[in-house]
């Protein structure tokens, strides 16, 4: 095998250290223009990538494809060596255990407290209870919520709820963290707090992909910025900025 390349599960070679590979990916729904049109994207392990663009630019479709919630119409997607075009249904849970996901609307279980929400993610991957009891306080300390482990979700502020969601996404030690508009429902202070936490997580080796509209944060953080418009990547630059559409 050529040096600097590794073999992925479909048999083809992908560059060493690459965790996400999209090759000429198109995703069409039943009617209208394709949501993604011939998109190619390569993300290396440990990168921090912002994906920006207006509504309808294809950002959410991209996230859904990376989660294997959708299958591309054309092209090929490989994430962590899994060919998402060909992955078997019963292998999807195992694949998803490598991903941490954070949503704009937090998606926490409101009938459970902070501890139970975070422990829930470990229950699902069948972590022994002894380990859950050890891991949950530790991850809650990382997101500065150690003192609120008994609080009900509706007793928390938006920023705190997003930190619980972040703790839940991180507790299974994902290789990639996907965040879909994580600051969309937060005030500037809480938005910055969440982004600083994500930066810290990234510094510890986790690849972070953030879909956002937050111009101030994107411009300030000096990370790789992929700009999308009408299903196409129009810009991809290291230490990029939020490009004005006008």
């Amino acid at each position, binding site marked *: 095998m050529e040096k600097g390349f590794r073999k992925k599960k479909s048999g083809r070679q992908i560059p060493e250290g690459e965790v996400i590979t999209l090759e000429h990916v198109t995703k069409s729904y039943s009617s209208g223009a394709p949501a993604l049109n011939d998109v190619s994207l390569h993300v290396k392990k440990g990168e921090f990538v912002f994906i920006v663009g207006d509504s309808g630019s294809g950002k959410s479709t991209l996230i859904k494809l990376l989660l294997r919630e959708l299958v591309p119409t054309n092209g090929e997607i490989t994430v962590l060596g899994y060919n998402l075009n060909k992955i078997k249904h019963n292998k999807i849970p195992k694949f998803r255990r490598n991903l941490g*996901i954070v949503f704009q609307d937090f998606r926490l279980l409101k009938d459970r407290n902070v501890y139970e929400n975070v422990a829930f993610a470990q229950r699902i991957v069948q972590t022994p209870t002894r380990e859950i009891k050890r891991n949950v306080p530790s991850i809650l300390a990382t997101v500065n919520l150690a003192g609120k482990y008994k609080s009900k979700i509706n007793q928390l502020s938006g920023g705190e709820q997003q930190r619980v969601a972040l703790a839940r996404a991180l507790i299974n030690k994902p290789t990639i963290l996907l965040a879909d508009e994580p600051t969309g429902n937060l005030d500037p202070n809480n938005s910055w707090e969440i982004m600083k936490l994500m930066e810290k997580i990234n510094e510890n080796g986790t690849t972070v992909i953030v879909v956002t509209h937050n111009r101030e944060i994107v411009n300030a953080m000096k990370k790789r910025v992929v700009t999308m418009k009408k299903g196409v990547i129009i810009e991809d630059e290291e230490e990029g900025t939020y490009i004005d559409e006008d």
Partner: protein
Amino acid sequence: MRINSFFYTIGQGFKNLGRNKWYTLASIATIGACLFLFGLFFSIINNIQHFVHTAEEGVSVTVFFDEGTSEDQMLAVKSEIEKRPEVKEIHYESADAAWEGYKEEYLGGYTDGFTENPLADSANLQIYLKDVSMQAALVTYIESIDTVRDVKRSEVTADTLSGLNKLMAYVSMGIIIILLCVSIFLISNTVTMGIAVRKDEINIMKYIGATDFFVRAPFVVEGILIGIIGSAIPLVIIYYIYKNAISYVNTKFAMLSTILPFLPVEQIYNDLVPISMAIGIGIGFLGSFTTVRKHLHV
């Protein structure tokens, strides 16, 4: 599956009952009502069958022999008939015994004019059947035996009883099938509602990497628990109703209890408990399993 995940799944099944308590209560109530009706019908049908069976025990076939047939030949025929699967009991009555019985029953002491046995040809076999519906087959067989002169049978009684038996079997089968379908539909509705209510939770589970089994199992456990509770409640209620009803009838209508003997509650429950539980668990499992397969695309 790890042991703690197993207990977690069972625990989630229990918690689901509480999280969705109004639907759970509605399902338990409806399954309980269905199984209550089932239990009631089961008890009534069993008692009717018991009455029929008691009546059947009195229905017999009497076999008379040709003139000149020796007692040894008759006893040989008796042994042959005894081997038949339809036969429950068989008694041989010699001509002398028949005459003695007749004298005792009808003539009292007035037998002076009789020097010989006037019932010399009346030696017979009295046959009781396991099931009156088998009477025709047995009679055909007996009539084909050479030494047999006549076979007396109570055709109307046998036909009525076996007809009643069949009718009861069809009616009970029909009622049970309807009740089962209603119960499965109800369980299915409860689980569908449960899935709808917990759609967000299921989505999160999928994103985190839960297996199909892990997502589905708590709903199936929930269905089974509803089935168990839904079958246990009517069993307790019917137990007390039945016991008190029998005791009331036996006390107030003592005459009736000699004509229509009721089965004791313990005898009914020997069958009713496992059947009700099996139906409860079965519909709980079937209703929830088919629903999660249909509505829960993980």
